[in-house]
């Protein structure tokens, strides 16, 4: 808030608004638009009906503790099993992609293109229908949990393979040369020196992938699950139809945020930390 110090004699005469005046005007317009949008929504929405449909305290109360001990627990289990399977498979695909053997590189490339290009929903249907058809009589180990791990893993492996490959390539070339000159074989240098450093680099994007998987675990309902195997989305939907009220959907949604928001916070923390640690 400095005073008007400009001496008209010394300052070259400007046409129209000064830079500061233009900035103030622009900010003023932006605030006005924001306020207008908020007011329009607040006035036109029917808050009473929304509250009736989505925020019935009595219905929300009877969801506990099952929504946590059963639904959220299953969501977390599905996500983690899919993540672990995807990480292992993604690692293999990433190393194939970096292999000096041509067919491995092509195969990895094809895998990544296909599974990144397909909606996760189709993969779930494929695992639920095609796998039992193709291998009749075989059970996927772990029942529903195994199927979810397989479906989520197949999808996430494609993304994680690309992330891991980028991480490995981001480790400076001198690291591999130093390891090789000490007598490490190529494979041992990768395992002992390169991959540990690559994982530090890709920890934030991998955690992001975990958040995405957490949401994709809702697709398990296309595999057909028992009551005990329901996760947040299915549980919320089932309860919403029995109570003819959408409150369970809102509660399920809040449960997702309960996990994803802290995770995103952790990712941001890690990103600033790795940003500082880079040499």
């Amino acid at each position, binding site marked *: 808030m400095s005073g008007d110090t400009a001496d008209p004699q010394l300052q070259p005469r400007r046409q129209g608004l000064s830079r500061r005046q233009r900035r103030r005007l622009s900010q003023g317009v932006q605030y006005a638009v924001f306020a207008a949008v908020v007011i329009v929504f607040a006035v036109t929405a029917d808050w009473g009906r929304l509250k009736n449909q989505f925020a019935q305290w009595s219905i929300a109360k009877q969801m506990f503790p099952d929504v946590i001990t059963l639904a959220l627990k299953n969501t977390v289990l599905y996500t983690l099993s899919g993540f672990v399977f995807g990480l292992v498979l993604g690692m293999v695909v990433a190393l194939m992609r970096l292999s000096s053997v041509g067919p491995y590189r092509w195969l990895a490339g094809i895998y990544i293109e296909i599974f990144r290009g397909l909606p996760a929903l189709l993969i779930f249907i494929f695992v639920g229908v095609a796998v039992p058809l193709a291998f009749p009589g075989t059970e996927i180990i772990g029942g529903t949990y195994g199927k979810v791990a397989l479906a989520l893993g197949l999808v996430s492996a494609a993304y994680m393979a690309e992330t891991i490959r980028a991480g490995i390539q981001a480790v*400076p070339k*001198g*690291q591999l*040369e*130093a*390891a*090789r*000159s*000490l*007598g*490490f*074989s190529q494979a*041992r240098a990768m395992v*002992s*020196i390169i991959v*540990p*450093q690559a994982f*530090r680099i890709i920890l934030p994007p991998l955690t992001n992938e975990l958040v995405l998987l957490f949401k994709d675990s809702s697709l398990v309902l296309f595999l057909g699950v028992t009551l005990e195997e329901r996760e947040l989305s299915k549980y919320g939907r089932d309860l919403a139809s029995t109570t003819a009220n959408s409150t369970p959907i809102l509660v399920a949604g809040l449960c997702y945020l309960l996990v994803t928001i802290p995770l995103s916070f952790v990712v941001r923390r890690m990103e600033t930390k790795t940003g500082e*640690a880079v*040499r």
Partner: protein
Amino acid sequence: MTTPPGKPEIEVRGLHKAFGANEVLRGIDLEIGQGEVVCVIGPSGSGKSTLLRCVNLLEVPTKGRVFVGGTEITDPDVDIDAVRRRIGMVFQQFNLFPHLSVTENLTLPQRRVLRRDKTEAAKVAAENLRRVGLSEKATAYPASLSGGQQQRVAIARALAMGPEVMLFDEPTSALDPELVGDVLAVMRMLANEGMTMMVVTHEMTFAREVADRVVFMDGGVIVEDGTPAQVITNPRHDRTRHFLSRLLDPAMAEVDDEGSAP
């Protein structure tokens, strides 16, 4: 000390190296005897680093043969990892492993490559850190060390493998001027202990005082090879004289067509 004692430790025969159409080395013959300290000097782009990297096969020669300790490392069937255990290498950019502490930088290669047990590796690591004067940094991480300290740790890491030959690729070029001395002191100590050393460097004082032989390279060939007195004090070739005058008195250099290579 111009005649290397005994069989050469490093022997390079008719070495050629090309990157695509770019011929970096065009026929190098060089012998380095046991315990000899040879400094390789020359303008950037002269191929001196490439030559050094060919000696432990970080670069694969296009043509020619390289022997280290009597083993031909250019033989396609050689166990290169076994040969490299006998050759220590120090890089311009140190290349310490940033995710490991100083001690772990020294112990991990011993344990994974030489299969030494934990106590043995720790003992060798401590001993070599002491030699480079960094015992008190044993638990530090590379990022918290100065460039000079990092380079000394890198030397200790190479020494912990018990090499017979040490290769130095411009070990002081990435250091602030006041940190160069500590690294050179460690290298001088190694030279006095009788280590066979091949050093690519721009440090003329070090070359003059420590080296048994100085090799001047330009344009992918060895132009001059002799004692420091011969090559640095009384160079016979114009190219050597030109290079040395630019290096020793850069402010007096004149603008010429050659300029300095990229």
